[in-house]
């Protein structure tokens, strides 16, 4: 059950260049949250900027809702100024999260795509002795914060991370799809049965294609401009494989890759 409330900011700290970790007091939302779901967050009480911003739930811990966000434009810039104690109108949890029933899930994150993936990892760590993540970053400099975050919050012995970086400064030089291809080719017969992916659109597209090629189920967490977040405005249309559109906020943000028309998107 989703609900709307004025969530008090517990903390809102930079964890890296242009990347912040926001913690909100929103027990009712945190308790109901499942990995892959998101919330809508109003960054200003006034009419400007007008619309709420969607953010994945990065964690839900003791009544606190964690959001990991990157400064992109005026809304996220304003958000950095939200002081502890101030209140932000928040509604959620929203949308369809990851289906975490797979036997041998493989997580794939690109850049800020880690935000929801981290929540999924926590969840899966309760279920499996080993959780595998392939993580693509630009490099240690630009994504130092994310890498630190993994080393820290997700640094459980159970999480096995392999990195790729565009500049070669960490892990394999190249794209995360290179890692994925390698993984598919070498992990036989224990090839993953499902890939759970979040990241930039070109990455998701490449991941979806690769999964199709290797006949592995694939769930992608997609972004679209959103107004309502609750399925009412029809603004967040994602072209569907069968023609027509799916709503990122309702049939998504996590969608089976096979349901998406990756050509039109």
């Amino acid at each position: 059950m989703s609900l709307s409330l004025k969530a008090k900011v517990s903390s809102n700290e930079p964890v890296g260049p242009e990347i912040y970790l926001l913690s909100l007091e929103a027990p009712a939302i945190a308790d109901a949250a499942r990995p892959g779901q998101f919330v809508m967050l109003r960054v200003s009480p006034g009419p400007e900027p007008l619309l709420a911003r969607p953010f994945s739930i990065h964690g839900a811990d003791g009544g606190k809702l964690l959001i990991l966000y990157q400064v992109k434009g005026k809304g996220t810039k304003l958000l950095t100024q939200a002081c502890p104690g101030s209140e932000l109108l928040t509604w959620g949890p929203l949308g369809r999260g990851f289906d975490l029933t797979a036997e041998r899930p493989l997580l794939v994150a690109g850049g800020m795509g880690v935000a929801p993936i981290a929540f999924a990892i926590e969840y899966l760590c309760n279920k499996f002795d080993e959780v595998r993540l392939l993580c693509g970053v630009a490099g240690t400099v630009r994504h130092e914060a994310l890498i630190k975050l993994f080393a820290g919050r997700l640094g459980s012995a159970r999480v096995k991370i392999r990195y790729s970086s565009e500049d070669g400064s960490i892990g394999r030089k190249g794209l995360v799809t290179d890692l994925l291809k390698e993984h598919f080719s070498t992990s036989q017969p224990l090839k993953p049965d499902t890939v759970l992916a979040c990241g930039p659109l070109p990455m998701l597209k490449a991941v979806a294609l690769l999964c199709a090629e290797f006949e592995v189920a694939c769930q992608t967490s997609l972004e679209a401009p959103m107004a309502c977040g609750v399925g009412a405005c029809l603004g967040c249309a994602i072209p569907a494989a069968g023609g027509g559109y799916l709503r990122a906020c309702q049939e998504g943000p996590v969608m089976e890759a096979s349901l998406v028309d990756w050509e039109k998107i």
Partner: protein
Amino acid sequence: MSPATDMAVTVGGVRLANPVLAASGTFGYGREYSPYLEPGAIGGLVTKGVSLQPRAGNPPPRIVETACGMLNAIGLANVGLDEFLAHKLPWLTEQPGAVVVNLYGESVGEFAELAQRLGAQPGVDALELNVSCPNVKEGGMAFGCHPGAVGEVTAAAVAGAQGKPVWVKLTPNVSDPAPMALAAAQAGAQAVSLINTLLAMAIDAGTRRPKLANVVGGLSGPAIKPVGLRMVWQVASALKAEHPTVDVVGLGGIMSGIDAAEYLIAGAKAVQVGTASFTDPAAAGRIAAELAAYCTEQGVSAAELSGSLRV
């Protein structure tokens, strides 16, 4: 809060517990917002525009934020009449509050057929004809800019609607909406609602492309409130003189109970809350409560407030 004042109004042939309705296209089919509003908090809702056939709508991007506003080019995506009757209307009928069905046809005949089939539904309280959508090729705004066409569409719907009140939703993309309102009234509409969105555009200077795939879209939100107020005042004044039994439903940029009061003062009998619901899913209920508080403070009923502008 139990308002000390009478908030009930009868508008366009429909009795409402309070004058705040949710606007078409911004409240889905009602159920989307049920987690956020107390049952009975608002006077009722206007559904997303229903067409005879399901419509997929325009390609994305469909929405973009602008200064104190937003553009949308949804393209009247909707589940279509059959699906609406089978799966949306039954739930709505069980809820307290009026159900106004917004409908959209590509021809006079389609409007008539929609009115006929929807008019036959006991759960439907009124029909709102969308002759003002800026985001579709056929019908829509093309109808809404000509009094003759508005009259024709309205007459056809009224004939089909089997006594169900017909409201006509007017476009702001005209010099003066009063002739359209008078044409609708003349043809038997019991209310006109205005304003729909202003035809507008946004450009990405980085890519030099339109920000909407549809190139143009409709502007809504607080930015347009001054235009909405002006048009409601123009239309209410014109109707008062020539068709005093035909009501005005005002909308455009209403974000607070005070905004709603302004529309009533300008001459609206009820208001609709649109884009505000996107900025706060409980907005429509909050606005109804704020309006009641304002009326109590001012010592007027909602009906008395209507048209009380002192010029």
